[in-house]
């Protein structure tokens, strides 16, 4: 016999504050962008509905295509370097005692530096004439000048991002490692597991959750990167380090093409959403799909 529970939906009112704050912080601005993206703003009081026109224009824009490719390459490179490096750092960090506290503080320092300061630091640090890095490299005969060579500019932006954000990955991985119960390591010792097997079969599977967060955070952040390359290279030389945000800003603020910029923003937003969705679902299932036994 089942007794019907009295239906009480009043608890939904408790969601209201969240809905209101989300509306003001996300929904309303987003709807404004949607609104702009389908109109041609001629003057503040005059606008014409243009439908999908701006979207078509944006999707056909070859500058946008190359910015998108650059962006994907950059985000891919960021993930490929920062995730393994962060895990390696976390594995090498002392587990307890004053040494671990010291390392944690040192590691967290780059995370405390504001974005534009990071850009400025590296801008000066890498200058071939007065920067420590640039000057040293030049003295050793390396042809390094990020203002002229797009390879040098790319490497500098990438290394700057690695310096700035690898600590975040390392801290996340470190927390994940500390959460693995000691019994796993003890069992592995009794089973005669090698150091590599311990990493492959215990540490890596147990880190999957935190690494997923690290990958998503680093992907989204690097995909939206703006300040550091803007300060460091200004998108140059040429357009070699002009990533999506910067291209968007040039359009919206520089040329004041509000319609195309809004359509661009929407596309940009959808790309991030789509890629995060794919990444999340892919990583969630890594190592869980059933294999047949040998």
């Amino acid at each position, binding site marked *: 016999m089942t007794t019907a529970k009295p239906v009480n939906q009043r608890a939904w009112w408790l969601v209201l504050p969240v809905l209101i704050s989300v509306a003001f912080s996300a929904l309303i601005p987003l709807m404004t962008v949607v609104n702009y993206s389908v109109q041609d703003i001629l003057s503040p009081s005059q606008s014409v509905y243009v439908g999908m026109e701006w979207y078509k224009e944006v999707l056909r824009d070859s500058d946008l295509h190359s910015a998108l490719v650059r962006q994907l390459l950059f985000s891919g490179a960021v993930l490929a370097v920062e995730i393994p490096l962060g895990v390696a750092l976390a594995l090498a960090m002392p587990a307890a005692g004053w040494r671990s506290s010291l390392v944690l503080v040192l590691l967290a320092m780059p995370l405390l530096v504001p974005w534009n300061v990071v850009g400025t630091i590296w801008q000066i640090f890498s200058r071939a004439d007065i920067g420590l890095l640039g000057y040293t490299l030049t003295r050793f005969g390396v042809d390094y000048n990020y203002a002229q060579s797009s390879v040098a500019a790319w490497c500098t932006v990438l290394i700057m991002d690695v310096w700035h954000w690898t600590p975040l990955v390392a801290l996340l991985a470190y927390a994940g490692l500390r959460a693995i119960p000691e019994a796993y390591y*003890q069992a592995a010792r009794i089973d005669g597991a090698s150091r590599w097997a311990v990493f492959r079969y215990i540490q890596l599977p147990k880190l999957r959750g935190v690494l997923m967060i690290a990958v998503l955070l680093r992907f989204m952040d690097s995909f939206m990167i703006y300040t550091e390359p803007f300060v460091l290279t200004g998108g140059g030389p040429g357009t070699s380090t002009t990533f999506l945000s910067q291209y968007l800003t040039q359009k919206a603020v520089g040329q004041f093409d509000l319609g195309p910029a809004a359509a661009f923003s929407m596309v940009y937003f959808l790309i991030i959403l789509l890629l995060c969705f794919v990444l999340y679902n892919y990583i969630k299932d890594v190592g869980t799909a059933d294999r047949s*036994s040998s």
Partner: protein
Amino acid sequence: MARIELVDVGHSYSASASAPAGQSDALDWALLPMTMTWADGGAYALLGPSGCGKTTLLNIISGLIAPTRGQILLDGRDVTLLAPEHRNIAQVFQFPVVYDTMTVFDNLAFPLRNRQWRTPEVRTRVHEIAEILELLPDLGRRARGLSADAKQKISLGRGLVRPDVAAVLFDEPLTVIDPHLKWLLRRKLKQIHQQLRLSLIYVTHDQTEALTFADQIVLMTKGEVVQAGTAQELFEAPAHRFVGHFIGTPGMNFLDCEWRDGAARIAGTQIVTASGGIPPAGAKLLIGIRPEFVELHDHASANSVPARICAVRDLGASTMVQLQLGPAAVWAKLRNTRHVPELGPVFAHLPPVRCALYADERRVA
């Protein structure tokens, strides 16, 4: 097959290196130096309250911890400095340890593959063990999704799969298992013990588990082994006051007494005990008797002391009687009583063979 001998093995977590002999008393021992032999093929339960050093002792035997001092011999071979993977000892932990991303088969094969076994042999051996553990239908499944008891069987299987394994150490392996499955798993363990003729050492703080599982019970408290013996020995002749308290429900009664004119006396009444020896002078003396052996009489006789019945509880198969004996509260557990005793004065008879003298917590021989 292996006989495990511990020779003067002691461990302290605060001292990393072996301390000079003169200073050893100052160490904060997690495990007091002890010498003990675990017979080949025996089923031992290591029983004691939390933090008494059970797990430390287990980890020393398996090699996860190097003892601060002493030697461990397996069949006479000194293995004190040998790494855990080179000892033929397996260990099962409190929480099931499985390699999440592997299948059950790969989990069981893992120790063999680490020892460079060839694929066909791995396959045969894994199937043998899976059959014993009733894991055959799950071999192709991923270990992650299995229930806690299946996972615990896998951890056990990873120990058993190595054919050289002579002893399996269990560290409270049934803690996270559902009660109705505990019983099945415990029976499985007994069966494996008989089938594979392994030595088993089983850490627990649940005395029912210990009493049903093991032939020999080793009782520990505060880093010290206080008694090792069969369940009956521990029940009938506790060597230490702690054993009396820990084994049995309720625990043993202990009554203050004094030693005068060559006999133990409670409030002046001479009590003859099973202890023939003379207690050391100045020791704190107690007479211990199990509630099961206290008899209630309505007249005075030899070895009986006047008391008062304060409370009576009928438990069905037995009757619990709470007595006030001078300043002490004493339990008597009566069986086959026709009538429920009435509250009021009574004589508590302490049968001489059933009570013993304890000097400074330890039983006098």
